[in-house]
């Protein structure tokens, strides 16, 4: 038998006396680990999106909100389709592609989907030839680092819509469907489907993107306009800049060109989203601080009570030759055990929570962060030690004479 088994035997006698403080520590660590995992993963996701879409500019109706840029084209308002040509004909420096979109609700085999009308890039090229203007790609701005002017073989595939947000060719009665829609409807390539009373042929099924595109169905813009009876309008126009510098310079020019529209860069939209994330993260830090305080204070209280009710035992131990240091360790190690148990189980619960909630809440895949978990467990132990420090000191300074006191 040694110090540790002494602590263990006492702890085993009444494990529930410390349950509340243990639970508080566990909840604190679990929420920290869960929130940080989700935050880190969604920040990673946002920067990944920024990396691929950062150079893009969204032209939206004036009253559109920006909470989620993926859904920003679903605000309900519309813009005249001429804006597309205006941008296109203005010959702005640094524009690579222009992609208008009209989103309308539709039904596909009994399930409601968003039908997005898009314009294939080939039509721009024909138009360009017809209008005798140079294609955007002919005019990269000076000093552009990222210009992607040539059309690669990949861009020609309809599946590239998922990553490039544009499509090369799309017939008037062809449709491209998102991964979720494909899963739920079981549609295959080449199948005929009915949308808004018109029959379409499935040209492609998009790979999963983890965005709202997964639950969308795409068709030719003009077909969608006709079927929806909305005239020549679009919900949003996406302008792909060659690089982020270009995007920043383009915004004021497009604003001047289209004074009745809202012109924002994707980075701005994403920043808005990041701001929302940050607010959530700050709120959860606050929750965390409260939980930590509650955990620490309740542990300090529990250890104090433990010291008080064991006064005579402590006196007896001191009479038997226990040093003040031994007595202090008796309580510090006990608190440490609690911190370890609470910390480690909190980590595991937090991780499980994050793995489960991440895809639901933030639409991100969670990657476990071992450093974070080790740090949280260590923090829990440190918290436990700090909380137990004063009670342990009190115990160590008790007068051994108490051993003679009768109860």
């Amino acid at each position, binding site marked *: 038998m040694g110090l540790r088994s002494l602590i263990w035997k006492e702890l085993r006698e009444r494990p529930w006396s410390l349950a509340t403080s243990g639970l508080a520590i566990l909840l604190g660590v679990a929420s920290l680990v869960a929130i940080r995992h989700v935050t880190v993963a969604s920040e990673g996701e946002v920067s990944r999106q920024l990396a691929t879409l950062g150079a893009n500019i969204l032209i939206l109706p004036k009253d559109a909100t920006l909470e989620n840029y993926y859904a920003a084209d679903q605000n309900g308002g519309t813009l005249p389709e001429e804006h597309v040509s205006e941008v296109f004909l203005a010959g702005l420096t640094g524009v690579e592609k222009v992609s208008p979109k009209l989103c309308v609700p539709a039904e596909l085999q009994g399930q409601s989907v968003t039908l997005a009308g898009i314009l294939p890039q080939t039509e721009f090229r024909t138009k360009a030839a017809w209008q005798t203007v140079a294609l955007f790609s002919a005019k990269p701005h000076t000093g552009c680092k990222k210009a992607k002017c040539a059309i690669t073989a990949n861009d020609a595939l309809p599946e590239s819509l998922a990553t490039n947000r544009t499509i090369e060719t799309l017939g008037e009665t062809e449709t491209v469907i998102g991964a979720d829609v494909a899963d739920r409807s079981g549609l295959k390539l080449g199948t005929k489907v009915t949308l808004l009373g018109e029959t379409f042929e499935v040209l492609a099924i998009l790979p999963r993107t983890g965005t709202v595109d997964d639950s969308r169905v795409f068709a030719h813009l003009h077909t969608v306009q006709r079927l929806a009876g909305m005239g020549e309008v679009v919900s949003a126009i996406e302008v792909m800049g060659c690089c982020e510098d270009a995007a920043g310079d383009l915004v004021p020019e497009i604003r001047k060109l289209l004074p009745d529209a809202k012109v924002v860069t994707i980075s701005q939209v994403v920043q808005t989203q990041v701001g929302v994330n940050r607010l959530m993260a700050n709120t959860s830090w606050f929750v965390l601080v409260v939980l930590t305080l509650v955990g620490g204070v309740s542990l300090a209280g529990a250890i104090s009570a433990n010291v008080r009710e064991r006064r005579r035992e402590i006196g007896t131990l001191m009479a038997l*030759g226990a*040093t*003040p240091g031994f007595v202090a360790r008796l309580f510090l190690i006990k608190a440490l055990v609690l911190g370890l148990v609470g910390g480690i189980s909190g980590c595991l619960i937090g991780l499980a929570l994050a793995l489960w909630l991440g895809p639901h809440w933030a639409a991100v895949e969670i990657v476990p962060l071992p450093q974070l978990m080790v740090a949280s467990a260590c923090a829990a132990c440190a918290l436990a030690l700090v909380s137990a420090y004063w009670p342990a000191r009190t115990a160590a300074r008790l007068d051994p004479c108490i051993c*003679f006191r009768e109860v």
Partner: protein
Amino acid sequence: MYGLQEINKEYNRRGDAVVAFRCDRLEIGAGEYVAVVGPSGSGKTTLLSLLGGMLSPTRGKVWLDGQSLYDLSVAERTRIRRQRMGFVFQSFNLIPYLTALENVQLPLVLTGLPATEQCRRATALLDRFGLHGRLGHKPNELSVGQQQRVALARTLVNDPRIILADEPTGNLDPTNRQLVLEILDESCRSGRTVVMVTHDPEAARHAHRQLRLCDGAVSEILVRNSTTKSGDAA
């Protein structure tokens, strides 16, 4: 062994100093068996705490084997207690969550003896006190007499030179009281110094010497002829 020199122990109670124990000079020889008697509140426990190195006197010195006990550090006094002293308490002070065996092992745990040796010594002593069937019992599963025997085994397991007992028979029935007194007698015969606080005149008669305390002062000393058992006043 012990020498008390111009000792005064005062407690402050709301500004009033209360003298709990005082004495000009008191010697306790090695191997002596001393009983401390006196009414409640007369300072018996205070004297025992002073001897046990647990309570520093307000004035004066407590000498133990030529060392001034209260000029040592807390750690050194603790070490002396661990190595040379054994305590017996009126209500035994067994640790409730430890078994009889573990309770007896406790002083050996504090000296850092290996576990097997702890077990061997504790078991041997408990056997000697007729508790071989009770090693794994918790204190609340033992009778009062068995508890005091476990406590005595814990006192003796370190082989202390000094035994300080505070009313060791106070809570016991006559049979168990007799048993405890025999163990103390036996300890004394094997050369240990025993200081026993007691209310019981019969028990006090087992000692070589009786100190009577009254209001914190040593007022009377009864010495018994070391060969006869029915010693009387001096």
